[in-house]
Structure formats: C-alpha cells, structure tokens
C-alpha cells in the first residue's frame, strides 16, 4: 500500500506521463499528470512450434545483406522460447474519457538492413512518427491507411528522416516499401497512451492507468487479435497473459 502512494503522489508531483523508460523522467514534464499509475504488465505466449519465417533474398541489395550475418529472414512471427514479440497490446474498454496528454517525443521507425525496425510500433493520435533510413539506398515509405491520409515518400539516401503525424485512431496502419517487397511494418494509432508492443521476450507493460476494469486487446499481423479483461487495483500492476497459436 505504502509504496503505491509514494509512487502515485510523486508521479502526480512530477506530472509526467507514466514514467516509461527514457521519456519518463522529464519528457512528459511539460504535460499534465496521468490519470493514475496502476499498470498492466503481461506476457504474450505462443503455443506449439512457431511457423518458420520466410527467408529474404537480399542478393540484389548487398548493402543490406551485409547487415544480416546469418541469412536474413522476415520476422513475421518472431517467437523466442514460447514468447511472441511484435504484438500490439492496447486498452480498448473501461477508460475514463480523455483528453490524454500527447508525448512530445516522437515514436520512431528505422529502415535498417532493408527491414523496418521496429516492425510494430504504437503511436498516439497527434504524436509525431519519425521515419529514418539507415541504409545507403533508396527506400520508399508507403502507408496505405483507411482512416488517415495516405502517403508515399522516398528516402534515397542514408540518414534521412521524415516526420508524419496521424490524425485519426487506426488499427493498424500498414507500411510497405515498394522497392523491397518484403518490408512491412504496422503502426497502431491510438487516441490514448495506454498501449504497448510486446518485446522479444513477449513482455509488455501499460502504465499510468487509473484503477478500474479494462478490456485489453492484443493484435498480431498474422495471428489475429485476442482480448482479455483485467482489473487493476489502484495499486498498480495486474498481470495479463495472451496466448496465440497452438
């Protein structure tokens, strides 16, 4: 009990958005306090043996191939001992009304080794999405949303950055690169800050929540979506596990 009040009030004190890693300390300092500081953390598991990811033929893109020492594969379903990465988890029900503070740090996607990194990214409506090119060759970023405005821009040189802002929530905005057909990424555009993407170890954390019962949905590009309900005491971390495959 005690610990919670400590953290809670000092978050209120700091007025920072949920204290997630780098941005936590001061990034949000300019923004208003979070609704709370309960957090939902959990795991995305994958049952059974994962489908093999297709190999990518990068023989015509030596600069990229060089960045993949062991033959490049397309991380569509990336499972490490039963944990599933690149799952977009977000709260879909039970939230008090907004508006929610928009973080000033941009969400980021990099094009590195002819792959989008990360493959799945979450971004808030109105938040900047910074798209960079780390490869010394032409990529074009083609987003074909349904709710937002489509764009198709090129980055012919390494080190280029383009910023885009989505104006409407959309699950998910698909990204392609027409030069490299295998390159895909997905951006989940949400109007609240309560989302996360499962890491390599399948774990995710959604923090800054007020106490309450929430419906949480997990999305995967090929394995579909799942949802679960979870109740968080005002004192933070409830856990939630999603299981795909099997």
């Amino acid at each position, binding site marked *: 009990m005690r610990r919670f009040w400590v953290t809670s009030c000092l978050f209120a004190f700091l007025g920072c958005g949920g204290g997630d890693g780098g941005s936590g300390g001061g990034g949000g300092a300019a923004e208003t306090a979070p609704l709370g500081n309960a957090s939902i953390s959990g795991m995305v598991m994958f049952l059974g043996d994962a489908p093999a990811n297709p*190999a990518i*033929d990068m023989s*015509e893109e030596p600069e990229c191939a060089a960045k993949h020492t062991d033959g490049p594969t397309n991380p569509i379903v990336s499972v490490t001992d039963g944990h599933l990465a690149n799952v977009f988890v977000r709260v879909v029900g039970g939230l008090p009304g907004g508006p929610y503070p928009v973080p000033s740090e941009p969400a980021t996607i990099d094009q590195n080794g002819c792959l989008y990194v990360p493959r799945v990214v979450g971004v808030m409506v109105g938040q900047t999405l910074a798209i960079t090119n780390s490869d010394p060759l032409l990529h074009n970023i083609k987003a074909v949303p349904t709710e937002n405005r489509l764009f198709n821009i090129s980055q012919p040189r390494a080190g280029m950055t383009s910023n885009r802002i989505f104006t409407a929530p959309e699950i998910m905005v698909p990204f392609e690169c*027409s*030069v*490299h057909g295998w390159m895909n990424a997905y951006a989940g555009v949400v109007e609240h800050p309560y989302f996360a993407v499962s890491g390599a170890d399948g774990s995710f954390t959604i923090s800054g929540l007020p106490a309450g019962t929430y419906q949480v949905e997990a999305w995967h590009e090929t394995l579909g979506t799942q949802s679960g309900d979870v109740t968080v005491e005002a004192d933070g971390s409830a856990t939630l596990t999603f299981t795909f495959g099997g």
Partner: protein
Amino acid sequence: MSWILPPGASTFAGDIDFLYYVILVITGIAFVVVEVGLLVFAIKYRARPGRKAQYIEGSIKAEIIWTAVPAVTLVIIGLMSGGVWNHIKGRNSIPPNAIPYEVHVKQFEWNFTYRGPDGQLGTSDDFIVRNQLHIPVNRPVELQLIAEDVIHSFFVPAFRVKQDAVPGMDIRVWFEATKVGEYEIACAELCGLGHYRMRARVFVHSAEDYQQWLSDRAAAADEE
C-alpha cells in the same frame, strides 16, 4: 560521340542493328544533302547590292522527284522493318521450345518465377528469385510479364528487348541470348518514385551451368 550501337547479345541484335545502320546511312545522306544544301545556298545566294533574286514559282518535276524518292525509300524501310518486327513481336513468333518464365512486376521489383523440377509453371514447386533472371544461352526463353500495379517496361539493352508490362493484359516477350554473361535489366516506363532504381540482372549460363544452378536453387527452395 558514337553512333555505334553497344554490343548485342541476343539473336535480335543482328537484325535490329542491321536495320538501324541502314536507316543511319539513309538519314545520314539526307542529313548531309539538306544541311550542306542550306549552307551552300546561304553563302552562294546571300544578298548582294543591285542583284535581284530569280523569280521562280516552283518546278513540278523537281517536286515530283523529291516526293517520290523519300516515299519509295521510306516504304522500303517499312517493308524491311515489317519482317523483323513480325519475327520479334509477331503474334506467333514465340518458338515452341522456349523456356517459359513468369515475371511478376511491381513497384519496384522484378520477381522471376521459375519452373520447378517438374518442368511446369504454376505448380507448387515453382520458385521465385527477386531481380535475378537466370537463363541458358542459345535457347529461346519466353517471359510472361504480369504487372501488378502500374505499367512497367522490361528492357534489356544488350538483348535489344523492350516490352511494356501492362496491368490486366497478357503480355509475352521472348528472346534468345547468344553470349554467356551478366546483363542489366531496366524499367523503361516511368512507374513512380523508384523507377530510376528498378534494376535487375540477367545471368546467361551455359546449358550445364544453368541446369546446375536450377537444381541448386530448387533444392534451396525445398528447404524453405
């Protein structure tokens, strides 16, 4: 400055280059005649005080000549071209023994589909190689160009082959490489912001190398 065509590497090169040089010579002559004529007249008949131009309204004979001569030459060129054109692009020009490939063309990639071991296209053992076309030498190949988004154009300068790939149309192009080696494939029709980089390569193998490559590749495809 060179008006010499780069070396060709397919059976078409001979015919096309020959026609090209024929036209080059004919037009060259016409070019010289006209330009020199203009120059000579310009100097010879430049205005001089007290001299008056000769009042000539025309000459039917002359005009008939310089109507007939170009007309005839041009029609001859046309007829010469016609044969070659039919041989290359004509409806039934594709040799029966041509090896079929499917080429799925999209912004901004060439995806070449190869027959698997069963020697049939459109079966499960087909495999796709991106931006690489491997063909045997001295053997006609037939490409079915399947454009998936916009119009692209399959262009191999060394083979003197160019054919638009139009979405929604069944388009086939054939050629027969005559020199082992590696050549570049370009997209010749503006197809978007990556058009300038829509590059692929043709690898012309000797017959046995080709078989070797094919089996390696099929094996690799199996593992995946």
